[in-house]
Protein backbone atom coordinates (compact mmCIF):
# COMPACT_ATOMS: atom_id res chain seq x y z
CA UNK A 1 0.00 0.00 0.00
CA UNK A 2 2.85 2.36 0.94
CA UNK A 3 4.72 1.50 -2.25
CA UNK A 4 1.61 2.23 -4.30
CA UNK A 5 1.21 5.55 -2.50
CA UNK A 6 4.86 6.42 -3.11
CA UNK A 7 4.54 5.42 -6.77
CA UNK A 8 1.46 7.62 -7.19
CA UNK A 9 3.20 10.57 -5.52
CA UNK A 10 6.27 10.12 -7.75
CA UNK A 11 4.06 9.96 -10.84
CA UNK A 12 2.25 13.08 -9.71
CA UNK A 13 5.56 14.88 -9.22
CA UNK A 14 6.76 13.77 -12.66
CA UNK A 15 3.53 15.00 -14.25
CA UNK A 16 3.95 18.35 -12.48
CA UNK A 17 7.49 18.71 -13.86
CA UNK A 18 6.26 17.85 -17.39
CA UNK A 19 3.38 20.34 -17.07
CA UNK A 20 5.77 23.04 -15.84
CA UNK A 21 8.14 22.37 -18.75
CA UNK A 22 5.21 22.58 -21.19
CA UNK A 23 3.99 25.85 -19.67
CA UNK A 24 7.48 27.34 -19.83
CA UNK A 25 7.80 26.43 -23.50
CA UNK A 26 4.54 28.22 -24.44
CA UNK A 27 5.90 31.80 -24.70
CA UNK A 28 8.36 30.60 -27.37
CA UNK A 29 5.43 29.52 -29.56
CA UNK A 30 3.76 32.93 -29.09
CA UNK A 31 6.77 34.67 -30.64
CA UNK A 32 6.06 32.94 -33.93
CA UNK A 33 2.94 35.04 -34.53
CA UNK A 34 3.06 37.39 -37.49
CA UNK A 35 0.98 39.77 -39.58
CA UNK A 36 2.58 38.56 -42.82
CA UNK A 37 -0.60 36.91 -44.14
CA UNK A 38 -2.45 40.25 -43.95
CA UNK A 39 0.48 41.94 -45.69
CA UNK A 40 0.52 39.34 -48.47
CA UNK A 41 -3.17 39.81 -49.18
CA UNK A 42 -2.65 43.59 -49.26
CA UNK A 43 0.14 43.21 -51.82
CA UNK A 44 -1.98 41.02 -54.11
CA UNK A 45 -4.83 43.54 -53.90
CA UNK A 46 -2.37 46.35 -54.70
CA UNK A 47 -1.29 44.61 -57.90
CA UNK A 48 -4.91 44.18 -58.98
CA UNK A 49 -5.84 47.76 -58.02
CA UNK A 50 -2.98 49.62 -59.71
CA UNK A 51 -3.32 47.42 -62.82
CA UNK A 52 -7.06 48.04 -63.15
CA UNK A 53 -6.77 51.80 -62.48
CA UNK A 54 -3.98 52.51 -64.97
CA UNK A 55 -5.25 53.00 -68.53
CA UNK A 56 -1.85 51.87 -69.89
CA UNK A 57 -1.75 48.60 -67.95
CA UNK A 58 -5.43 47.94 -68.59
CA UNK A 59 -4.82 48.26 -72.35
CA UNK A 60 -1.81 45.91 -72.11
CA UNK A 61 -3.87 43.36 -70.15
CA UNK A 62 -6.74 43.56 -72.67
CA UNK A 63 -4.29 43.04 -75.55
CA UNK A 64 -2.75 40.08 -73.69
CA UNK A 65 -6.21 38.56 -73.08
CA UNK A 66 -6.90 38.85 -76.81
CA UNK A 67 -3.77 36.77 -77.53
CA UNK A 68 -1.24 39.61 -77.74
CA UNK A 69 2.39 39.72 -76.64
CA UNK A 70 3.25 39.23 -72.95
CA UNK A 71 6.66 40.96 -73.15
CA UNK A 72 5.41 44.41 -72.10
CA UNK A 73 3.55 43.02 -69.08
CA UNK A 74 6.55 40.89 -68.02
CA UNK A 75 8.86 43.92 -68.12
CA UNK A 76 6.43 46.13 -66.21
CA UNK A 77 5.68 43.63 -63.44
CA UNK A 78 9.29 42.42 -63.34
CA UNK A 79 10.46 45.96 -62.56
CA UNK A 80 7.86 46.30 -59.80
CA UNK A 81 8.81 42.95 -58.27
CA UNK A 82 12.49 43.91 -58.23
CA UNK A 83 11.55 46.79 -55.88
CA UNK A 84 9.04 44.81 -53.81
CA UNK A 85 10.85 41.56 -53.07
CA UNK A 86 11.56 38.12 -54.48
CA UNK A 87 7.96 37.09 -55.05
CA UNK A 88 6.44 35.14 -57.91
CA UNK A 89 3.55 36.78 -59.78
CA UNK A 90 1.14 34.96 -62.08
CA UNK A 91 -0.96 37.25 -64.27
CA UNK A 92 -4.06 35.76 -65.86
CA UNK A 93 -6.26 37.70 -68.27
CA UNK A 94 -9.14 35.80 -69.83
CA UNK A 95 -7.68 32.45 -70.84
CA UNK A 96 -4.07 33.68 -71.09
CA UNK A 97 -1.51 33.50 -68.30
CA UNK A 98 2.12 34.44 -67.70
CA UNK A 99 4.53 34.08 -64.78
CA UNK A 100 6.99 36.74 -63.59
CA UNK A 101 9.89 36.10 -61.20
CA UNK A 102 8.94 32.47 -60.51
CA UNK A 103 12.21 30.64 -59.91
CA UNK A 104 11.67 27.87 -57.36
CA UNK A 105 8.80 26.10 -55.69
CA UNK A 106 6.57 28.35 -53.61
CA UNK A 107 4.23 27.27 -50.87
CA UNK A 108 1.94 30.14 -49.94
CA UNK A 109 -0.11 32.06 -52.49
CA UNK A 110 -2.83 34.71 -52.56
CA UNK A 111 -5.00 35.83 -55.45
CA UNK A 112 -6.82 39.08 -56.21
CA UNK A 113 -8.97 39.67 -59.25
CA UNK A 114 -10.67 42.53 -61.10
CA UNK A 115 -13.09 42.69 -64.01
CA UNK A 116 -11.66 44.80 -66.85
CA UNK A 117 -13.78 46.36 -69.57
CA UNK A 118 -11.96 45.53 -72.80
CA UNK A 119 -13.91 47.08 -75.67
CA UNK A 120 -17.42 45.92 -75.01
CA UNK A 121 -16.53 42.77 -73.09
CA UNK A 122 -15.55 42.18 -69.50
CA UNK A 123 -12.33 40.24 -69.01
CA UNK A 124 -11.39 38.61 -65.71
CA UNK A 125 -7.86 39.63 -64.64
CA UNK A 126 -6.32 37.57 -61.82
CA UNK A 127 -3.10 38.32 -59.97
CA UNK A 128 -1.60 35.49 -57.91
CA UNK A 129 1.39 36.24 -55.69
CA UNK A 130 3.39 33.28 -54.39
CA UNK A 131 5.79 33.37 -51.47
CA UNK A 132 8.27 31.08 -49.80
CA UNK A 133 6.63 29.15 -46.98
Amino acid at each position, binding site marked *: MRRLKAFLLSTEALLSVIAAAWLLSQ*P*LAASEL*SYRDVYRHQLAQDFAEVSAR*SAETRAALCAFAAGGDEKELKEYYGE*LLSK*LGSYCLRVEAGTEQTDVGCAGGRAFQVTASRALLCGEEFVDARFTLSFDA
Partner: protein
Amino acid sequence: MASKPHRRYGAPAPAGRMPPHASSKAMTARRASRICRAFSNDGAACRGIFDFDAVVASVLAATVLFMGMTAFSTGAHSFAEGVSLLESERTAITAADYLVKDCDLGVARCELGFAYPHEYGGRIGDAGRALSNATGKKVRTYANESAEGICAKRLMLNGTRAVVVVACVD
Protein backbone atom coordinates in the same frame (compact mmCIF):
# COMPACT_ATOMS: atom_id res chain seq x y z
CA MET B 1 5.23 -16.42 11.12
CA ALA B 2 3.37 -13.87 13.20
CA SER B 3 3.84 -10.32 12.05
CA LYS B 4 4.45 -7.48 14.47
CA PRO B 5 1.54 -5.03 14.79
CA HIS B 6 2.27 -1.63 13.14
CA ARG B 7 2.28 1.45 15.28
CA ARG B 8 0.28 4.39 13.90
CA TYR B 9 2.12 7.68 13.21
CA GLY B 10 1.67 10.12 16.09
CA ALA B 11 0.83 7.38 18.57
CA PRO B 12 2.98 7.32 21.71
CA ALA B 13 6.06 5.10 21.47
CA PRO B 14 6.06 1.90 23.54
CA ALA B 15 8.03 2.25 26.74
CA GLY B 16 11.66 1.11 26.53
CA ARG B 17 11.82 1.07 22.68
CA MET B 18 12.10 4.75 21.84
CA PRO B 19 12.95 7.69 24.11
CA PRO B 20 10.14 10.25 24.34
CA HIS B 21 12.45 13.07 23.10
CA ALA B 22 13.34 11.28 19.81
CA SER B 23 12.84 13.63 16.92
CA SER B 24 11.10 12.67 13.69
CA LYS B 25 14.41 13.13 11.84
CA ALA B 26 16.02 10.48 13.98
CA MET B 27 13.06 8.21 13.33
CA THR B 28 13.39 8.73 9.59
CA ALA B 29 17.14 8.06 9.77
CA ARG B 30 16.55 4.84 11.67
CA ARG B 31 13.89 3.82 9.16
CA ALA B 32 16.25 4.50 6.22
CA SER B 33 19.00 2.55 7.94
CA ARG B 34 16.60 -0.36 8.53
CA ILE B 35 15.60 -0.38 4.85
CA CYS B 36 19.27 -0.28 3.86
CA ARG B 37 20.11 -3.26 6.11
CA ALA B 38 17.21 -5.18 4.61
CA PHE B 39 18.99 -5.05 1.22
CA SER B 40 22.59 -5.20 2.39
CA ASN B 41 24.52 -7.34 4.88
CA ASP B 42 27.15 -4.62 5.36
CA GLY B 43 25.93 -2.61 8.35
CA ALA B 44 28.78 -0.07 8.08
CA ALA B 45 27.78 0.82 4.54
CA CYS B 46 24.32 1.76 5.75
CA ARG B 47 25.63 4.30 8.25
CA GLY B 48 24.86 7.82 7.08
CA ILE B 49 22.58 6.70 4.26
CA PHE B 50 19.94 9.24 5.24
CA ASP B 51 22.41 12.11 4.90
CA PHE B 52 23.44 10.92 1.43
CA ASP B 53 19.80 10.56 0.42
CA ALA B 54 19.03 14.09 1.58
CA VAL B 55 22.03 15.50 -0.29
CA VAL B 56 21.03 13.76 -3.54
CA ALA B 57 17.46 14.99 -3.17
CA SER B 58 18.65 18.55 -2.48
CA VAL B 59 21.00 18.50 -5.48
CA LEU B 60 18.20 17.20 -7.70
CA ALA B 61 15.77 19.82 -6.40
CA ALA B 62 18.36 22.58 -6.93
CA THR B 63 19.07 21.34 -10.47
CA VAL B 64 15.38 21.25 -11.37
CA LEU B 65 14.88 24.71 -9.86
CA PHE B 66 17.90 26.11 -11.75
CA MET B 67 16.71 24.56 -15.03
CA GLY B 68 13.22 25.92 -14.46
CA MET B 69 14.51 29.42 -13.72
CA THR B 70 16.79 29.34 -16.77
CA ALA B 71 13.97 28.12 -19.04
CA PHE B 72 11.59 30.74 -17.66
CA SER B 73 14.12 33.53 -18.07
CA THR B 74 14.97 32.49 -21.65
CA GLY B 75 11.29 32.02 -22.51
CA ALA B 76 10.30 35.39 -21.06
CA HIS B 77 13.13 37.16 -22.90
CA SER B 78 12.22 35.46 -26.17
CA PHE B 79 8.54 36.28 -25.68
CA ALA B 80 9.31 39.98 -25.03
CA GLU B 81 11.44 40.15 -28.17
CA GLY B 82 8.71 38.45 -30.22
CA VAL B 83 6.05 40.85 -28.96
CA SER B 84 8.26 43.85 -29.68
CA LEU B 85 8.93 42.60 -33.24
CA LEU B 86 5.23 41.90 -33.76
CA GLU B 87 4.34 45.40 -32.60
CA SER B 88 6.88 46.96 -34.99
CA GLU B 89 5.53 44.79 -37.82
CA ARG B 90 1.96 45.89 -37.04
CA THR B 91 2.98 49.56 -36.95
CA ALA B 92 4.82 49.29 -40.29
CA ILE B 93 1.87 47.57 -42.00
CA THR B 94 -0.62 50.10 -40.58
CA ALA B 95 1.61 53.04 -41.55
CA ALA B 96 1.95 51.71 -45.11
CA ASP B 97 -1.83 51.30 -45.29
CA TYR B 98 -2.28 54.94 -44.21
CA LEU B 99 0.28 55.98 -46.85
CA VAL B 100 -1.83 54.39 -49.57
CA LYS B 101 -5.30 55.39 -48.37
CA ASP B 102 -5.06 58.65 -46.44
CA CYS B 103 -4.22 62.15 -47.61
CA ASP B 104 -3.53 63.65 -44.15
CA LEU B 105 -1.29 60.95 -42.72
CA GLY B 106 -0.46 59.37 -46.07
CA VAL B 107 0.38 60.31 -49.65
CA ALA B 108 -2.92 59.56 -51.40
CA ARG B 109 -4.07 62.23 -53.83
CA CYS B 110 -6.62 64.64 -52.39
CA GLU B 111 -9.12 66.73 -54.31
CA LEU B 112 -11.80 68.93 -52.70
CA GLY B 113 -11.33 67.08 -49.43
CA PHE B 114 -11.71 63.63 -50.98
CA ALA B 115 -8.94 61.06 -50.85
CA TYR B 116 -8.14 58.89 -53.85
CA PRO B 117 -6.63 55.67 -52.45
CA HIS B 118 -3.75 54.11 -54.41
CA GLU B 119 -3.17 57.38 -56.33
CA TYR B 120 0.15 58.98 -55.38
CA GLY B 121 -0.10 62.66 -54.45
CA GLY B 122 3.50 63.30 -53.28
CA ARG B 123 4.64 64.71 -49.87
CA ILE B 124 6.31 61.45 -48.81
CA GLY B 125 8.56 63.24 -46.28
CA ASP B 126 5.60 64.98 -44.60
CA ALA B 127 3.82 61.64 -44.32
CA GLY B 128 6.76 60.18 -42.40
CA ARG B 129 6.60 62.97 -39.82
CA ALA B 130 2.79 62.78 -39.55
CA LEU B 131 2.87 59.00 -39.07
CA SER B 132 5.63 59.30 -36.46
CA ASN B 133 3.48 61.75 -34.48
CA ALA B 134 0.37 59.58 -34.85
CA THR B 135 1.97 56.28 -33.86
CA GLY B 136 4.48 57.56 -31.31
CA LYS B 137 7.22 55.59 -33.06
CA LYS B 138 9.89 56.70 -35.50
CA VAL B 139 8.41 55.95 -38.94
CA ARG B 140 10.51 56.45 -42.08
CA THR B 141 8.76 56.66 -45.47
CA TYR B 142 10.17 56.32 -48.96
CA ALA B 143 8.90 56.23 -52.53
CA ASN B 144 10.67 54.00 -55.08
CA GLU B 145 13.69 53.56 -52.81
CA SER B 146 15.14 50.51 -51.13
CA ALA B 147 14.94 50.54 -47.34
CA GLU B 148 16.25 48.55 -44.38
CA GLY B 149 14.62 47.57 -41.12
CA ILE B 150 11.08 46.42 -40.44
CA CYS B 151 9.32 47.76 -43.53
CA ALA B 152 6.02 47.33 -45.34
CA LYS B 153 5.87 48.05 -49.06
CA ARG B 154 2.75 48.95 -51.00
CA LEU B 155 1.92 49.86 -54.59
CA MET B 156 0.41 53.18 -55.71
CA LEU B 157 -0.31 54.69 -59.07
CA ASN B 158 1.68 57.75 -60.12
CA GLY B 159 0.11 58.86 -63.38
CA THR B 160 -0.14 55.63 -65.36
CA ARG B 161 2.84 53.84 -63.76
CA ALA B 162 3.00 52.10 -60.39
CA VAL B 163 5.39 53.25 -57.65
CA VAL B 164 6.45 51.39 -54.52
CA VAL B 165 5.89 53.31 -51.27
CA VAL B 166 7.62 52.05 -48.14
CA ALA B 167 6.98 52.59 -44.42
CA CYS B 168 9.72 51.46 -42.02
CA VAL B 169 9.74 51.38 -38.23
CA ASP B 170 12.96 51.71 -36.20
